[in-house]
């Protein structure tokens, strides 16, 4: 292998480059598919921009300006060229560049996503570790997980609003972007990932607890907590990190509902508006940003996994 690669970067860097390239292809595929799907949806864009009482002249003018009468491949090519030069087009309805609309909303969504991930890891991780150390399945936790799995995110969201904002009135019911407004959406989004996360943590922990090297650690006469901290948790981490990377994708689909339920001013809300207004450039823009975030999240998980597991380092260079 080494002979073939002489002159090439080292295994790890090459692996990373390949992943990046695959990531770009993924984003391109998502872009193409979404673009084609949009044209399969019935509806006259020009009319939705100009309103029901627009004159035929105005409609024709709009169609001409947006090249709506051009063949699909021509429109696609125009759009793709724009995206590659960093121009995501202009929103039909809000009459602003899509790029600046998204840039204004992105920090809020990232904040919500990261907070939800922290909630999920803390809660799901703790429950998974607890159940693994317990040695047998907990009926209570199984019921909780099944309940959470069966509850759609938006329903859980309204339930939270009803209980914590309306009846107990401990959290704000209004729209806003501060810490108090972050609590409910982050918890609801995080809770939606808890069943998956606690299962992965439990299975990974259980397998590690039964492994031969943990027996060695016990045979050394180490205290129980040292064995768990040093030999079990660290080894059980790898699948958990991979899971967290994939959860970024799960959260990005959940974010649309959660942001709308709680009025959190993020990309999910923007996407919802774009969909309702047939605002094609804006919808495309939010989809592309989501695809980039998913690719980036998985890439980040891989990098972290390599950092915590020396065996993955060897796989990468082999």
């Amino acid at each position, binding site marked *: 292998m080494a002979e073939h690669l002489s002159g090439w970067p080292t295994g790890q860097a090459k692996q990373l480059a390949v992943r990046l390239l695959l990531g770009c292809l993924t984003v391109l595929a998502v872009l193409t598919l979404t673009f084609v799907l949009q044209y399969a949806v019935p509806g006259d864009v020009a009319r939705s921009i100009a309103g029901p009482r627009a004159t035929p002249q105005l409609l024709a003018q709009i169609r001409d300006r947006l090249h709506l009468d051009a063949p699909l491949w021509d429109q696609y090519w125009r759009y793709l060229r724009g995206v590659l030069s960093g121009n995501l087009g202009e929103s039909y309805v809000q009459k602003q560049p899509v790029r600046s609309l998204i840039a204004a909303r992105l920090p809020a969504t990232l904040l919500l996503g990261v907070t939800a991930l922290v909630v999920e890891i803390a809660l799901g991780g703790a429950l998974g570790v607890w159940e693994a150390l317990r040695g047998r399945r907990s009926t209570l936790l199984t019921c909780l997980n099944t309940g959470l799995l069966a509850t759609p995110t938006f329903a859980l969201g309204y339930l939270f609003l009803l209980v914590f904002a309306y009846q107990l009135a401990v959290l704000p019911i209004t729209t806003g972007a501060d810490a108090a407004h972050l609590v409910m959406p982050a918890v609801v989004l995080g809770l939606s990932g808890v069943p998956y996360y606690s299962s992965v943590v439990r299975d990974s922990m259980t397998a590690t607890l039964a492994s031969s090297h943990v027996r*060695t*650690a016990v045979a050394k*006469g180490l205290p129980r907590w040292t064995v768990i901290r*040093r030999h079990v948790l660290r*080894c059980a981490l790898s699948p958990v990190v991979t899971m967290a990377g994939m959860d970024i994708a799960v959260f990005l689909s959940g974010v649309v509902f959660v942001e709308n339920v709680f009025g959190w001013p993020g990309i999910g809300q923007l996407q919802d508006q774009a969909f309702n207004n047939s605002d094609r450039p804006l919808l495309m823009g939010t989809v592309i940003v989501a695809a980039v975030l998913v690719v980036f999240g998985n890439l980040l998980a891989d990098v972290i996994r390599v950092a915590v597991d020396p065996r993955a380092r*060897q796989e990468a260079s082999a």
Partner: protein
Amino acid sequence: MSAPVSIEGLTVAYGDQVSLHDVSLDVPAGTVLALVGESGSGKSTLAHAASRLLPPNARILGGTISVGGTDMAALTGHELRSARGSTVAYLPQDALAALNPVMRIGRQIAEVFTAANGRSDAAEMAVEMLRRVSIRDPGQVARKYPHQLSGGMRQRVMIAIALAHRPQLLIADEPTTALDVTVQAEVLELVAELQRDTGVTVIWITHDLSVVKEIADTVAVLYGGRVAEHCAADELFAAARHPYTLGLLGSFGGARTAAPKERFTAIPGSPPLRGGVPGCPFHPRCTRAEDRCRSEAPPLLGGVACHVVAREATGTGAGETGMTA
């Protein structure tokens, strides 16, 4: 350092299936006992019980495991933790699985010292242990991860971990099985050498009679969770008495000397399932089995547990009355 080991009436069960029945063994201080048996004979159960590493579903139902006066079977909590490694050390079969994959070798040895007395020079002592198990360039090996070492090296690292606490009893659970033959011989030699130096008492579990020949002072043959024969190693090869041991020796000799195409001698039938049969566990496969063997488990008399052998040794009538009394 060296301590006599005495196991009395040890009974171990997985759930409600008894896999070790009333096993008694003696190992004089500083000697090597080879524990021989096929899969399911209970030899690994005995190893795990004596080092108190039984899985959670297994229970010690009775008996004592005395190591230099400490009853390992009775220890709990903090006493058990400090006895692990220092009174009894365990050397496992698969060294790759038995080492933490994400921790450097040096640290895995060093934590034995830090666990015992929080020594600050644990890292240097770990390197010293690697040198003692004849690893070249121990300083560099200490910085490696398990998957970067060869099978023989990993087993040497396991030996270093096991002996780091200067244990009184070392339980070696088929540590050479996963290695290829030349490495097997090296590891065997190393353990024999360290055993002579430190005087540690060893229980070596194996199904390979050539290993017995190599290092054992005494031998115990396990079958179906009971001791079939317990004698000196030389005696086993010269004058084994139990029908199972004879069959074992027959198939071993056959495998060693048989010319190509010549048939191996094998013991007819297959080993018992856990839980077993009433009477002598070997009777379904034994060519000399009598009615009594089917109903009553033979006690260990003069190093052998067999009704037929006992009767022949004492004369027909005397054996009957002696046994039934």
